[in-house]
C-alpha cells in the first residue's frame, strides 16, 4: 500500500481507538463496557455458561447451515445489492484522496485494509459467541478460520458491488465487460434454486417423519448442488475441523480462495468515485448539520418525489407529525426494484414448487411456513434494517429539542413510527401466512387463535426491541451508527450480532414478568372454561401481557425522555 495511505490508516486507527477510550471517562460508557466485558469474559472462559451459538460448529448439520448462510449472503448481495460500491469513503477521504495522484486500485487496497479493523472486531465477537462447541481447536485457530471467512465475504461483497457499479455505469458495455462473473453467478443461483425446488417434496416427507436434517444433508451432497456449494464448503471446513491436522489441511485451500478474491477486487476498472462521493457528501451533510459546521452542496438530484402514503391532518396531537415524518422517510427509502425482484421470485418459486408437489394444500402449508419465518425474524432483525427513528434523527438534535414537546413524547413518537412500519410489514406477512395456513388441514396450531395472539404480540415485541435500539442510540451515541446508513456487510456482522444479542437479552428481561402474568391469566381462563393449556386461552391473556409491557415501556420512555432532554450535543459525534 502507498506509504501515505498506510500512515493515514495507522494514525486514524490509533486516534479512533484513543477517542473510544476517552469515551470511557463517561460513567455510562464505562459501566456498559464493564458489564459487557464481564459477560463475554464469562462466556469465553466458563464452559458451563450457555452461549446462544456454542455448539453450532460441531455437527454436519451446522456445517451445512453455515455453508447455506454464506451462499445466501453472497447470492443476495448479487441479486439485491445496491448499484453503489460497497466501499465507503468519508467526505474528507473524497476531498483529499480522490484528487491526489493515487490509482483506483490503491484506493481500493486502502479501503480493504481499513475494513480489516472491523473484520478483526467481528472475529473476536464471533469467537466468543461460538466458543468451543464440540471441537478441540484452540482459540487462535478458530479466529484464523473466522478471519478467512469474514475477509473472503467482505472481498466478495466489494467485488460484486464493483461489478454491479461497472455494469450500471457503462450499460450494455459494462455488462459485456463483466459477463464472466455475471454469467457464473446467474448460473450458480439458477441451478441451486432449481435443485432446491426439485427436492422440496422429499424434504417435506422427511420432515413429517422427523428426518428433516438427514434430507437436507442428502440435498447438499446431491449433484449438481454439491459441486456448486464446494467453494462455500471450502471456506467453512476449517471452522469445523476436529484436529489441528484436519485444520491445517483445510485452511490452505480456504486461504487460497480468499487470496484469489484480492486481485479480482483491487484490479477493478469500475468508476466508483462519483457514486462514492455522493454518498460521502450526504453522510457529511447530516453529520455537519449535527455539529453546526459548514458543508458543501450536494449535486442536484431534483426529480419526482414519491407522494406520501397518507396525509398529515393539520390539527391533532403534534407527536403524530413525528410518526408521519418517519413513516414517510421509510417509504421513500424503499427500493421498489428489491420489492419487484422479491415478488417475481415468490411467483417463480411458488410455481416451481407447485409443479413439484402438485398439491395446493401442500403448497399453502409451505407458503405459510415461509411467511412465518421472516415474520419472526423481523422482530429481532427488523430494528437493524428500519432505522427511521432516533437513530437517524439524533443528528438533528437541535431541531428536535426546539420542538414544543416533552422529551418522553418525542422519544415515544420516534419509536412509534418504526413500530408502525415493522408491524405493518409483519401484518401483511401474517395475513398471507394465515390465509395460506387456513388451507392446510394439518396446521400444527389453530390458525385463528395463533393469528389473534400474533396481532397483539407482534407490535408489543416490536415496541420493546425498538425502545432498546433507540435507547441505545440515546445512551451511547458514540457507539451506535447514527444517520441513514446502518453498519452493513458481512465484515460488520459481529457488531450487528452484538446489537441483536444485547437487544435479545434486554427484551427477554422485559418480557419475563408480562409473560408470566400472561401464562397465569391463560391458566385462569383454562380453569374457567375447563380446558388444559389451550392456545385459545392465550387470546384473552395476550392483551393483558401487552398492557403490562406498555406499562414497562411507559416508565422506560419517561427515563429516556429525561436523558433526551439532557443529552449533550458534544456526544453526538457519529462513530466513523
Amino acid at each position, binding site marked *: 500500500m502507498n506509504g501515505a495511505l498506510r500512515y493515514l490508516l495507522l494514525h486514524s486507527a490509533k486516534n479512533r481507538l484513543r477517542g473510544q477510550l476517552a469515551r470511557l471517562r463517561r460513567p455510562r460508557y464505562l459501566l456498559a463496557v464493564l458489564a459487557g466485558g464481564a459477560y463475554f469474559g464469562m462466556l469465553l472462559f466458563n464452559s458451563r455458561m450457555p452461549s446462544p451459538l456454542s455448539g453450532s460448529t460441531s455437527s454436519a448439520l451446522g456445517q451445512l447451515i453455515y455453508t447455506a448462510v454464506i451462499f445466501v449472503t453472497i447470492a443476495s448481495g448479487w441479486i439485491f445489492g445496491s448499484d453503489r460500491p460497497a466501499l465507503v469513503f468519508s467526505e474528507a477521504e473524497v476531498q483529499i484522496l480522490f484528487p491526489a495522484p493515487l490509482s483506483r486500485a490503491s484506493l481500493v487496497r486502502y479501503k480493504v485494509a481499513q475494513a480489516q479493523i472491523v473484520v478483526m472486531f467481528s472475529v473476536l465477537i464471533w469467537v466468543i459467541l461460538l466458543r468451543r462447541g464440540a471441537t478441540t481447536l484452540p482459540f487462535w485457530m478458530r479466529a484464523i478460520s473466522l478471519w478467512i471467512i469474514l475477509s473472503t465475504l467482505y472481498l466478495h461483497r466489494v467485488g460484486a458491488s464493483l461489478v454491479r457499479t461497472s455494469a450500471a455505469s457503462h450499460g450494455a458495455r459494462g455488462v459485456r465487460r463483466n459477463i464472466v462473473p455475471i454469467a457464473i453467478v446467474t448460473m450458480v443461483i439458477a441451478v441451486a434454486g432449481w435443485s432446491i425446488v426439485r427436492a422440496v417434496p422429499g424434504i417435506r416427507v422427511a420432515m413429517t417423519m422427523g428426518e428433516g436434517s438427514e434430507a437436507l444433508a442428502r440435498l447438499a451432497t446431491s449433484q449438481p448442488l454439491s459441486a456448486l456449494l464446494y467453494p462455500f464448503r471450502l471456506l467453512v471446513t476449517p471452522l469445523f475441523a476436529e484436529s489441528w491436522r484436519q485444520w491445517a489441511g483445510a485452511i490452505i485451500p480456504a486461504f487460497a480462495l480468499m487470496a484469489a478474491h484480492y486481485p479480482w477486487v483491487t484490479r477493478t476498472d469500475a468508476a466508483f468515485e462519483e457514486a462514492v462521493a455522493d454518498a460521502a457528501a*450526504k453522510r457529511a451533510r*447530516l453529520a*455537519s*448539520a*449535527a455539529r*453546526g*459546521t*459548514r*458543508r458543501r*452542496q*450536494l449535486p*442536484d*438530484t*431534483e*426529480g419526482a*418525489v414519491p407522494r*406520501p402514503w397518507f396525509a*398529515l*391532518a*393539520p*390539527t*391533532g396531537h*403534534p407527536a*403524530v*407529525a*413525528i410518526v*408521519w*415524518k418517519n413513516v*414517510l*422517510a421509510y417509504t*421513500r*427509502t424503499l427500493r421498489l426494484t428489491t420489492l419487484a425482484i422479491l415478488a417475481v421470485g415468490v411467483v417463480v418459486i411458488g410455481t416451481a414448487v407447485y409443479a413439484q408437489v402438485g398439491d395446493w394444500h401442500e403448497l399453502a402449508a409451505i407458503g405459510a411456513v415461509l411467511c412465518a419465518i421472516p415474520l419472526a425474524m423481523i422482530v429481532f432483525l427488523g430494528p437493524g434494517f428500519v432505522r*427511521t427513528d432516533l437513530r437517524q*434523527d439524533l443528528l*438533528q*438534535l*437541535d*431541531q428536535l*429539542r*426546539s*420542538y*414544543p*414537546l*416533552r422529551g418522553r413524547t418525542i422519544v415515544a413518537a420516534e419509536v412509534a413510527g418504526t413500530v408502525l412500519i415493522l408491524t405493518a410489514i409483519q401484518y401483511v406477512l401474517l395475513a398471507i401466512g394465515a390465509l395460506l395456513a387456513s388451507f392446510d388441514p394439518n396446521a400444527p396450531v389453530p390458525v385463528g387463535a395463533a393469528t389473534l395472539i400474533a396481532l397483539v404480540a407482534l407490535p408489543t415485541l416490536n415496541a420493546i426491541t425498538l425502545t432498546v435500539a433507540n435507547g441505545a442510540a440515546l445512551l451511547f451515541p458514540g457507539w451506535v451508527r447514527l444517520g*441513514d446508513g446502518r453498519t452493513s456487510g458481512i465484515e460488520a456482522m459481529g457488531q450487528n450480532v452484538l446489537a441483536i444479542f444485547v437487544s435479545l437479552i434486554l427484551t427477554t428481561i422485559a418480557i419475563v414478568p408480562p409473560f408470566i402474568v400472561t401464562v397465569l391469566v391463560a391458566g385462569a381462563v383454562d380453569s374457567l372454561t375447563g380446558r388444559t393449556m389451550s392456545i385459545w386461552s392465550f387470546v384473552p391473556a395476550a392483551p393483558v401481557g401487552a398492557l403490562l409491557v406498555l406499562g414497562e415501556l411507559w416508565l422506560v420512555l419517561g427515563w429516556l425522555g429525561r436523558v433526551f*432532554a*439532557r443529552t*449533550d*450535543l*458534544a456526544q453526538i459525534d457519529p462513530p466513523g
Partner: protein
Amino acid sequence: MIDVEGLTKVYGDFTAVRGLSFHVAPGEVLGLVGPNGAGKTTTLRSIAGIIVPSSGSIRIGGDDIATAPERAKARLAFIPDEPQLFEHLTVEEHLRFIGRLYGVANAPALIEPLLVEMELLDKRKVLPASLSRGMRQKLAIACGLLHSPSALLLDEPLTGLDPAGMRRMKSTIASRARAGVAVVLSSHLLQLVEELCTRLLVMQRGRVIALGTLEEIVAERTELAGRPLEDVFLALMDEGERTDPERATP
C-alpha cells in the same frame, strides 16, 4: 418577551457563558455580537431550550424554559446557522410537519404565501438534497415563521444567501419585529447588526462586554464617538481583554 437572568453554561472546566442577563421586549431586535467562541450560539441554544443552562433562568413570554418548556417553546422559533432539514420531506411537507407540530390549524392556508415570501414556491415538491445552501436556509426560516412566533432567535441568518436573498431576509426580520416579535440575532456581519438591531449585546469569552443601543455604548466611551461600528467593536474587544478577570495575571 425574552428574559434571561444570570445564564451560565459550563462544559467541564470551560465556562461558555458567564452570568448573562438581558431582556428583549416585543418589537425589539437585539444584536448578539462577539468573536468566535464568545458564547453567542450557546446563548441562543440555551434560550431555545436545546441545551440546559448550568444556572440562571430563561423566560419566554413569562414561561420558564426549564419548568414549562412546551409552552415556552411554542412561542419561539430558533433558526440555526446550519439549517437542519429532514432529508425525506419535501419543502412543502416540512411546513405541513411543522404546522402540525406547533398546532397551526390554518397551516395549509399559510404555506403558500410563506413559500412566495421565501421564493421557494417552485421548489415546494423538492427534497432538501436538491436545494442550494441559501434555499435550505430560507426553508429553515419559513419553518421558523410558520407558527407566528412571538420570539425569534436567528443565528447568522444571512449565511449562504445571495444579495437579493439577503435584502429579502432583512426585510422579513424587520417586518416581523414591527409586528411585535422579539428578535435576537447573532451575526458577525456588523453592517447587518447596525442596520437591523435596536440594541446590542457584545460578548467575549462568555461574558457581557457591553449592552445597550449603539449610542448608549458609545456615550460611555467618548473616545469612540463618531467611529464606525467595526472600530467600536474592536475597541470593545480590547477593553474586554484588559478587564477580563479570568485573564488577569497575578
